[in-house]
């Protein structure tokens, strides 16, 4: 089941800039004011993970992609693109509903995601938690 919300083409352009040109470190996506379209909320080149966490509000939902860089034991540096669905428990039920039911539209249009994180509190999206999941993956 899906909400029928559309994805603004800008989302895809920015994403491919992140993926291919490494222009950004992360992108935060959100819904436009009348809940009809997924749009880019913010792009950034900051390499500080904490800056990224600050972009995710405590009581509102967001999606994000983050270009995660880590050392794989004995195999050097790796990059993985991580997709975040951010829906804190304290968000409004309407927002949670719309974001959850629209996620698929965005997720499917972004090709090249290695890992998906469903986050409801900051512990689930903490750098170590995400890194741990990324390293466990193949």
């Amino acid at each position, binding site marked *: 089941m899906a*909400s029928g919300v*559309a994805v603004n083409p800008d989302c895809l352009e920015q994403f491919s800039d992140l993926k291919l040109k490494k222009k950004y470190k992360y992108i935060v996506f959100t819904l436009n004011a009348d809940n009809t379209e997924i749009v880019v909320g913010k792009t950034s080149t900051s390499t500080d993970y904490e800056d990224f966490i600050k972009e995710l509000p405590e009581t509102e939902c967001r999606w994000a992609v983050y270009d995660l860089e880590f050392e794989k034991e004995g195999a050097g540096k790796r990059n993985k693109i991580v997709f975040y669905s951010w*829906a804190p*428990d304290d968000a409004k*039920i*309407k927002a949670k509903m719309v974001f*959850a039911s629209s996620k*698929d539209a965005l*997720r499917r249009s972004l090709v090249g995601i290695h890992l998906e994180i469903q986050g409801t509190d900051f512990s*689930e999206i903490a750098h170590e938690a995400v890194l741990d999941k990324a390293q466990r993956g193949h």
Partner: protein
Amino acid sequence: MVNYGGDEVSALVIDIGTSSVRAGYAGDDTPKAVIPTSYGYHRTAPDADSAMQDVTEDPMNNPGTPKIAKMHMGQYGPTVWREGMEVANPMVEGLVNDFGPVAALMRHAVVDVMRCNPSDHPILVTEPAWNTPANRERMAEIMFEEFQVPAFYIANTGVLNAFAAGKGSALVIDVGHTMASVTPVVDGFVLRKGLAYSPLPQYVHAHARHLLVNPTPHRRGIDLFPHQLIANKLPVDAGAPPRFALREDRVPKTTQSWRAWSEAREVDEWIQSVAGVLETGWNDQAAASRPPKQYEFPTGYISYFGPERYSVGEQFFLHAPQMMSSNSHLPKTMTALISESLRACDPELRQVIMGNVVLTGGGSLFAGFGDRLSAELSRNFPHVKIHSPGNPVERRYGGWLGGSVLGSLGTFHQLWISKEEWAEHGKAIVGQRCK
């Protein structure tokens, strides 16, 4: 395709459960009409319906149920005692079993309580994950042919509950009035093979009833007369035999089905105020150390309930071995349902959904249920996280609320089945569109 702009679509949402039918406007945060799903009826019209105010319907003219002469629904439905009135419930194991009364109940909720004309509003109906294709097609047929709705959609309560908690993937644990179910939802779709459900709450109810009506060494068997059958009563001390008089004018004219329904209500009431479950698992000492709770029955009988009130909740999680051996058809416990459901999911997915457990349904408000569930799960899984709405309204009407938000979205309306599409494609479109 039509471009739907804003969110003003004036859709209605109907969520049908075994205990109540919830109906309201999409976009609202609570259903406008909540009416009991059980209804009263007379086989033949009574001569005079004397002192009763009848806020009820036309006689049912459905050929499938010819015996019903008059239905009594809603606020003045089964709760009002009437001479010779039978009580029935159209749901069996959470599914609609008898569509005649269900159509009448929906009409009552929408037309009489909400004062809406269904032909003016798109209607979204919810269904449990184990609903049958025939059932949902029949529902669509009633909506389009009988109610003349302009558009219709049927949505899965498991998915709605997951979405309402902000999750595309989740393990939805829904404890209702008669059914408990565990539904894995992955990216907005139900993973059918992982669906597990059983009539566990019904069994817990039966256990509580057994506990109450049978005498124990320190307590008499309790009479479950409802207040409608009691003429007067005198205050008595706790544990003393009740001193009450029955309404002899009513008792002989009361039907079996009404008695059964009203006694079940007394049991439910007792469960809701007294019964509980120990948070960490059964332990005689822990149960004995909890303060007993006092409860007064409609007869005036007062008793204190100690450890036994915790044995009721225990039935959700553990069947006593002697029960297991004497009865092989016990409904599966919550723990059994959850492990059955997880067995069907691959390990990678298991991890994701165990971190996103959504607890919902009115039955999950049972005292201590959430804590116990979390204790049971963390024993077997390292990263369990249970999300249960703290607000009891969100818990009881989770499916309705999810439908309410979805139905209010302008963009969602391109997915509704319109009247024209129904006319063109017929029943086949329901399965295609509502996945």
